[in-house]
């Protein structure tokens, strides 16, 4: 989404305000300050991070109940990313408001999501709340003595072995997986 290059951020704010009567002007001023933006800045002079913040300001000050964002933190430096995520987290504290966003960055997803949905080539392949995901997805680091072959366990979706060290990734972790590996002679280093 691109703003009009030759116009200022203030012009964009006035334009949106003329369409949304419930535009929250004090909140927009607060966001200007928090994001380190100036209303008189022309869009063509803004960096990528500033443009993302400006766009988010224009959206947030409308006080929408549902916010749909596509890769909101892509291409941002860590500081700008932190600022954006902090503001989105602040939105989430209001229980009447929701954010639906797409991201390839699992750190962002883990930081602000309540519910996660995986989409692959346009199809939903899994959808559940974050805590359940974090509980189910685990990485088991194993020490595998020579001559020992790791068994195929249900819920383990990937095993990578390099010499005596192996990493098994589980998408449906169960505590008895560790004992199943140890039963074959492997040693679980960490989960």
């Amino acid at each position: 989404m691109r703003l009009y290059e030759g116009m200022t951020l203030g012009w964009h704010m006035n334009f949106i305000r003329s369409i949304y009567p419930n535009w929250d002007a004090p909140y927009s001023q607060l966001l200007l300050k928090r994001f380190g933006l100036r209303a008189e800045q022309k869009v063509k002079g803004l960096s990528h991070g500033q443009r993302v913040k400006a766009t988010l300001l224009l959206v947030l000050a409308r006080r929408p109940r549902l916010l749909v964002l596509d890769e909101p933190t892509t291409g941002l430096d860590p500081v700008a990313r932190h600022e954006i995520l902090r503001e989105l987290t602040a939105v989430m504290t209001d229980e009447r408001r929701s954010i639906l966003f797409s991201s390839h960055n699992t750190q962002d997803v883990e930081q602000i999501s309540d519910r996660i949905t995986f989409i692959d080539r346009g199809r939903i392949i899994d959808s559940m709340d974050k805590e359940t995901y974090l509980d189910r997805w685990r990485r088991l680091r194993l020490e595998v003595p020579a001559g020992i072959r790791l068994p195929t366990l249900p819920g383990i979706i990937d095993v990578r072995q390099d010499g005596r060290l192996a990493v098994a990734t589980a998408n449906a972790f169960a505590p008895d997986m560790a004992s199943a590996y140890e039963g074959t002679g492997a040693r679980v280093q960490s989960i």
Partner: protein
Amino acid sequence: MSGSVIRTLILKDWQLHRTQISFSMVAGVVALGVVQLRSETAFMVGTVWLFVALIVLGSMLPVSNVINERKKQSAVFLMSLPISAVQYGMAKMVSTIGMFLIPWGAMVIAGWTLVLSRHDIPNGFITLMFVLFGLPLIGFCLIAAAALVSESEGWTIAATIVSNSSYGLIWYFIIREPAINGTLKSSAPVWSAPVLAILGGEAAAIALILGLTFYLQSRKREFI
């Protein structure tokens, strides 16, 4: 809400293009200033500049107001607002045509006033002036229609080429028309049947192009 949204979008386009419109107005004023230098060469040069200013504005406006908004993805910004495709289409049509009509109308009035105020230019010129001023308006309508309906840079460029390359030929035939050529030096404009037929043809062409554009714009249901 619908009317106010369309009005807001039209105002937005005006604000975005005020520099472009101002430049064309300034170019028109300069051209008229050259015409006032009271020599035959200055009259010709000024007249050509006046039409060039209109033709350039008529070619650039649809591109910058319609095509560039798509190309630069600013239309996506508008899609995030509570605006329907019909409202957007209608606002674009009104703003594009309005932004051209203002300088065009101003130049027609200025040219008319100039001919009436100058004793060395016979009033018979007024018929030719009105016929010639209709041409950039038709050309603009054609380019704007291509831009608004197709929203494609390729089709708009094609319409611009067709429109701008036909001025010379049409001017040639108009100047050779006895009903115009033969009355240029008369003391009053002669609104003969052929002149009225040409003006009627121009008006019909404009009405047809704009009517078709309005119809097609009102049928758009999707932004993309």
